[in-house]
């Protein structure tokens, strides 16, 4: 790959596909490290936020793979502190979001992210079923997915007696409409979005 093709984010590379899908270019980053300095989760990450960007900047497939396998992309809470402070206006939370979706699609999710992923999946499953979140349903299915049966068992009665737990779910009238939204977006979770700055309609929509 030529240096020019690399720097512009050639569509064969992960940065190129990222740019097509989100309009974000990792080559805007000059590695000042401000994102990492402000990140509340940086201390727990395997790669600091600026290092994730660095892995993508170098143009080496094995490093791009490393970014997709990183725990960091799952620890990002989208608090937006990095984006607010970036002198180059790189939307790092959006990049992390894209990497998570790629990581999931490729089946290379970091093993330590399994609880986080289980929570997200349990959350979305309850929304698809009812249209709104049912907290008891969410916690039950999270426990079933992860085996953390005893976490927060002492909290449940407190919540119940304060009237904060609804034991039974009820679906909204438009539940079928919400479920249809899930079905229609499930087909291509990682396909490029039509984006003003990227090239449209070139994605893999299968």
């Amino acid at each position, binding site marked *: 790959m030529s240096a020019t093709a690399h720097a512009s984010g050639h569509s064969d590379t992960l940065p190129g596909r990222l740019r097509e899908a989100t309009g974000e270019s990792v080559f805007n980053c000059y590695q000042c490290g401000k994102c990492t300095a402000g990140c*509340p*989760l940086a201390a*727990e990450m395997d790669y600091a936020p600026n290092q994730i960007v660095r892995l993508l900047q170098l143009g080496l497939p094995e490093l791009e793979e490393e970014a997709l396998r990183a725990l960091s992309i799952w620890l990002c*809470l*989208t*608090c*937006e*502190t990095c*984006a*607010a402070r970036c002198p180059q206006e790189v939307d790092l939370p959006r990049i992390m*979001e*894209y990497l*998570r*979706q790629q990581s*999931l699609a490729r089946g290379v999710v970091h093993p330590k992210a399994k*609880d*986080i992923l*289980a*929570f*997200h*999946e349990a*959350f*979305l499953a309850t*929304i698809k079923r009812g*249209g*709104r*979140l*049912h*907290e008891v349903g969410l*916690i039950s299915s*999270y426990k079933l997915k992860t085996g953390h049966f005893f*976490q*927060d068992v002492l*909290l449940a009665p*407190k*919540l119940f007696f*304060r*009237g*904060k*737990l*609804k034991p039974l779910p009820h679906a*909204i*009238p*438009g539940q079928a*409409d*919400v479920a*249809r*939204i*899930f079905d*229609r*977006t*499930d087909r*291509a*979770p990682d*396909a490029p*979005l*039509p*984006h*003003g700055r990227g090239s*449209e309609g070139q994605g893999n929509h299968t």
Partner: protein
Amino acid sequence: MKIGFFPGCSLEGSSREYNESLHAIAPLLGVELTEVPDWNCCGASAAHSLNHKLALALPARSLALAEKSGLDELLVPCSACYSRLAITRHELLENDALRSEITKIIELPFTGRTKVLSVLDVFGRCASNGLKDKVRTPFGQKVACYYGCYLTRPEKITTCARPEDPREMDDIVKVVGAEPINWAFKVECCGAGFSVSRLDTVAELSGRIVHDAAARGAQAIVVACPMCHTNLDLRRDSIERTRQQKYALPVLYISQVIGLALGLGERQLGLHRHHVPVRLGSVAPANSVAPANSRCPTPVAADVPAALGSAGASPSPGGSPAQEKEA
């Protein structure tokens, strides 16, 4: 002021006191709330972690339903929902191709006519429009206004004038007689969506927030987000275990602070539903704690007598167990 209302899922469950207090004070403030019929979950962090299109389509449906009901403005009290709805509206208005794709998915028209407002937007209007005259019992406490992430960031969505040191909530609580303190953790993240999946992380991040507020003499933390409330209030036991220190500092929704000042009762405002007891009448001098965290940027004089009320187990004023542990 007639305004649309999108409560969000938390307000129907674990943060129902936020809902109760909002509905209790709205009529007193001359605000008429109309709930969006058949609204659905915004997808929260789960949707935009796993599927970007889903993260846009779910809020878009509720926005489209708000439009269909003829609502020009929509109050979204949960700041996570607020962020998802406001970002979706922004992205769909910016990008015609995306808008047509999402409207096909939701099978509803979307024009973006309904504007998305946070509680700070709405209470800010009230504050500059006669709220002061309605105050019956000024709040009269030192409070740490905690904004968290989504009321201020991203700046292009929230149009917050000072995203690193916002003042909107401080200005509102001043009108009802509270004394907002200067502190360092106004916009730091509480751990948000990791409340279940990474409790240790939440205890660490939220612990710093509670600690700084207490160390600087706040008598209450004021929030405008159910997730912030959960992490600072419901998760207090984990915070105390992590920091090896007790904190009696209650966490109130801004609607509860306004409600108390308007003379409403504690039960009407759902104060009895909190995990950390709210005993404002008897709040002793501010909680005294020494700076235990090396990341806490400001040295705090621990000259206030330790007074943690009935929570007990106060730290010694000069040093902190957490500090010793770290050393």
